[in-house]
């Protein structure tokens, strides 16, 4: 598997650390309801198809990446910096 880091270019997946779904980016407010925190921490989809998740270029530029990929075809359709993400 290869990921195209926006800063370093295309690299082998061994350079990256996998974290999990992009849900981690949508942190609830400090006073949000318990159920909302529970969903943020624990509830995840397991899609057959397009998914967005978080990868860390640990052996590279230390940037967190938001990767859009397809779990069925393994196609990677987008990689952006978490720090400069659009949405």
């Amino acid at each position: 598997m290869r990921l195209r880091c926006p800063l370093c270019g295309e690299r082998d997946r061994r350079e990256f650390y996998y974290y999990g779904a992009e849900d981690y980016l949508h942190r609830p407010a400090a006073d949000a309801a318990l159920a909302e925190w529970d969903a943020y921490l624990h509830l995840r989809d397991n899609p057959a198809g397009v998914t967005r998740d978080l990868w860390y270029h640990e052996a590279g530029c230390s940037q967190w990446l938001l990767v859009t990929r397809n779990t069925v075809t393994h196609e990677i359709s987008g990689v952006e910096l978490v720090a400069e993400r659009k949405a």
Partner: protein
Amino acid sequence: MRIDGKGLIDRTKPVRFRFDGKDYAGYKGDTLASALLANDVRLVGRSFKYHRPRGVLTAGSEEPNALVEVIGPKNQTPNVRATVQEVFEGLETRSQNRLGSLRFDLLAVNDLLWPFLGAGFYYKTFMWPRAFWEGLYEPLIRRAAGLGSLSGRHDEGTYEKAFAFCDVLVIGSGPAGLMAALTAGRAGADVILCEESHAFGGRILSDGGTIGGMPAGEWLAQVLAELEALPNVRLMLRTTVTGAYDHGTYGALERVGLHKPARPNLSRECFWRIVAKHAVLAAGALERPVAFPDNDRPGIMLASAVRTYLNRYGVSLGKRVTLFANTDQARAVARELMAAGVTVAAIIDPRPDAFSVEDCPVHVGGEVIGTRGRLGLTGITVRKGAETFEIETDCLAMSGGWNPTLHLTCHMNGRPRWDEDLAAFVPMEGAVPGLVAVGAANGSMSTHGALVTGHAAAVQAVQALGRKAPDLPLPEAEDRPYVLKALWAVEGKGRAWLDFANDVTTKDVKLAAQEGFRSVEHMKRYTTQGMAPDQGKNSNVAALAVLADATGRGIPETGTTTFRPPYTPVSIAAMGAGGRAEGFAPQRFLTSDQASRDRGAPMIEAGLWYRPSYFPKPGETTWREACDREVRMVREAVGVADVSTLGKIDIQGKDAGRFLDFVYTNTFSTLPVGRVRYGLMLREDGHVLDDGTSARLGEDHYLMTTTTAAAGLVMRHLDFVHQAFCADWQVRFISVTESWAQFAVAGPKARALVQSFLEETVDLPFMGVAPVRVGGVKGRLFRISFSGEEGYELAVPTRYGEALFRDLVARAETMGGGPYGMEALNVLRIEKGFITHAEIHGRVTAHDIGMEKMVSAKKDCIGKAAAQRPGLWGPEREQLVGLKASAPISAGAHLFVPGMEIHRETDQGYVTSVCWSPTLGAWLALAFLKDGRNRHGEKIRLVDHLRGIDVICEVCDPVFHDPAGEKLRA
């Protein structure tokens, strides 16, 4: 026997080798198989289940029978294919899977028992009595199972792994692959051409013929010379592309030194990961056997293999050869044998309308229905219409047509397509993105077809790369149609083999269908069809044709089993190259490493770091004696310890304090410059991530310390929090762990020792930090303590670490002090109730360790909201306590109320750290106990079933030593 004037072997370079203890001679360029056949050794192995005598079936890596052990000075490799292993001077080999000698294998009794050993016999036979399984059946089956044997020793040979990158990867160097490589190479693309064998050329080496109006061998030499001269083309011989993976990544195994005598630093194998923008699969096709009764005797071989041994190795397998084949193409081997002076006794062609005029008898419409010869073929029985007759022969060449080598196209879940005309599966286009199958691998069976499709695929690839395709005229070549009548099995008396390696016959497949295993995947698992080292390369298609017939379905409906990587076996040693023993993980050494070893300190692993365990003195016989002395030394005088392994993160920017407030539970933005504060860090789920101190070095400048274990984890966490939640804040940070060497100086005499190094007088308050000069070098002095004594940490740039350590220790010794190791460091911190990752192991909260007051109410921080969830705080939680005992106790033990039953439900908690405290003269522990903070003074029962420990302890505050902290602040 060797045929004069034939073959590409180097007859000027004879080679001696051994097989089963006997000496043989071959030539450079021979494989073990060709050299043994040249010496008339036909029996080379025993089959897996029935221990039938077996000979060489093929001339390539798909060989199911000729598997041998290669014995090297430092390794013994089982299941080596004799058809791939090249001979070299001193090569030592041995046949395998036999009890006794190869000629008289005692396990051949299985062959007489065959009516009882059909498909599924394990499942049916070893059911009862149940008690027999472990003691009798399993050991017996394990003894009989497997093929070759291992030496039982470590493989100390050298292996490598490597990455390569290219525009176009060409897999296979027959006419199709050569044409593709030449086209892409001339266009200037970066090309890698991989060839599995030990010479380029593919079937050109076996079949000869003409290409471009010249002998094919001459064309091959010309193309190779041009490819070798092109700087943008890399030629990789003895390299099998074993797998296709995501995004243009291919696995490949190179046999680097397996064809040479072992010598130091000569790699045996190299596992390549090749990243290619485009790939051309030109792997050719594999000829398939025909399942006729007793088709497995030594001397029965694939027609294409007979042709390879004749033309490439100059060997004939017999003096009276017969051919049983259903294509026109296969006739060539008979003609070439006759031209070389070998008698061809007969050609048997099952096609009723086949061409019948050759220089030998041709039995059109005939079939082979039986064979003779115990250890090697002596004759065959032929049926033609109503008549049967015998033919004397010592070599039967057979062919049932060809299967395209499409395995790589299935590695990413692609399924092949059935082609009725070829009676074979062909690759599905686009099954592996970026890979195009050409030539015979794609069902283009003629040389012309190979050249055309190889050229076209390369043109397509170079154009996609934005390059201009070269003006390359296509050389003329043979373009005969490939016409066959599918022939999978011949009915007759006796067993007809499909999978030679795993002893699966047509009867087994029919039995599977009869017993309900009608799906091809079920049949495979029930019969073990295709599960041998050749992974069904020779037999899968025929087996599913037999299954299709037995179930009354067509082949396309029956489908195929899944081809998975690797295409050929890959040794674990090659995939894990460099990872054995010390290579398993990187080693990190302190600047004081040599100085510690000089003092005889045994080193202990802490993550990747190596730290001194203790510093033994003459007369000390156990680690405990040294440890106890070092603890007393720190408590009474002064000790020096290297603490550089702690993670150090330099944090700067206008928002640095704000950032620390967000990642720590407590507040750092209010910390005065020149002061240090202990901080607690949570995960977002409310559990403790790490702890450590952070110092404020300037208005916008902090230095964070992490534990040794969590240094990488914390860095990753900080990067995430920053980039995900506050990327616009003015803060940047970097790990400086390796930039500073840092030494703890602790004890009543610590201040005097530290001061002796400083140019200025420093009067630091507890939890203070100041820049200092040490012997003219800029350093930092922290007044912090992990021991409970007055303590300092002195940091200097790493390159001065060793000098400072040696000097610190030398001066400490003049004051009654010295160095202390990890063991003493651990005792000191337990006595003081300081936690490490033994306590903050990922399942504890700030509340559990009594630090809930450190979670600031005035601000948000990572983990704060989740830490307040029900269940993460309160009396039900196991809370940090100290335990005191007068007998040895152990970490990992569990706690129970004295007098209560001991079982899971009555468990009250567990012990995380334990030591003998020379300071208090007692055994101490840190433990987690339900509602522990309210139970100080209680007696608790500590039970460790593993070590047989059962001790009553007193529950107390975790801070045993100097609870008021007077020594710290002295």
